[in-house]
């Protein structure tokens, strides 16, 4: 069995376990697209699975990564999703990032964002990079690690 087949099987098993334990009425869909294996729950009422600020779905995603990789380096990426949650979350993060950038430019001061997991910090960092008038850097330790959006200093 190839690495990607094993990863898909492990993700499927993990999601079955969680769906059972949380008593969810959901279908499990596991897909591989290039190096990305995505396990998605499709169903109604997935709030408990997603959790506050996505805490639970991110915990499941972390466990999925640890289970699949077992601490070994890999080129694969594992994503756990639920009925469009990651898209909605990405949209909300981009909006927050834009607001923070506008505030930083307006006030000339750095603006700290809420704590985010590494993949979300990367998304925001890349989103703001194209603006050219702010820079972003991370501060603090997990799980409180967060991005700071600072106005770019004008070249002297």
């Amino acid at each position, binding site marked *: 069995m190839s690495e990607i087949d094993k990863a898909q099987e492990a993700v499927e098993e993990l999601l079955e376990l969680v769906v059972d334990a949380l008593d969810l009425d959901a279908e499990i869909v596991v897909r591989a697209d290039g190096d990305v294996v995505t396990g998605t729950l499709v169903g109604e009422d997935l709030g408990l699975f997603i959790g506050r600020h996505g805490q639970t779905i991110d915990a499941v995603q972390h466990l999925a990564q640890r289970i699949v990789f077992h601490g070994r380096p890999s080129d694969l990426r594992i994503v756990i999703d639920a009925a469009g949650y990651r898209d909605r979350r990405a949209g909300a993060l981009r909006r927050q990032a834009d607001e923070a950038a506008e505030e930083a430019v307006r006030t000339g001061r750095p603006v700290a964002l809420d704590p985010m997991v590494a993949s979300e910090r990367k998304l925001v960092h890349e989103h703001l990079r194209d603006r050219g008038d702010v820079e972003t850097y991370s501060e603090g330790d*997990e799980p409180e690690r967060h991005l700071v959006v600072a106005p770019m200093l004008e070249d002297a």
Partner: protein
Amino acid sequence: MKELLEELARRLVDEPDEVSVEQFEEDDGTIVLELAVAEDDYGKVIGRGGRTANALRTVVKAAAVRENRRVLVDIVE
């Protein structure tokens, strides 16, 4: 919840047969789950900065919500 924690831990470690979970109930009804694994596997269930331990707690807590219970996960060495 006990089974969930056991199954998750078994998938994380190198020695799944060494995983054990003891369940206790406190006076206020809180369920305490004590997780033990093989000596060399503690790093696997705790993770960098305790991230994996926190993820285990978060998922087990979600299962407890379904049963209207409070749950504490202890990793015992």
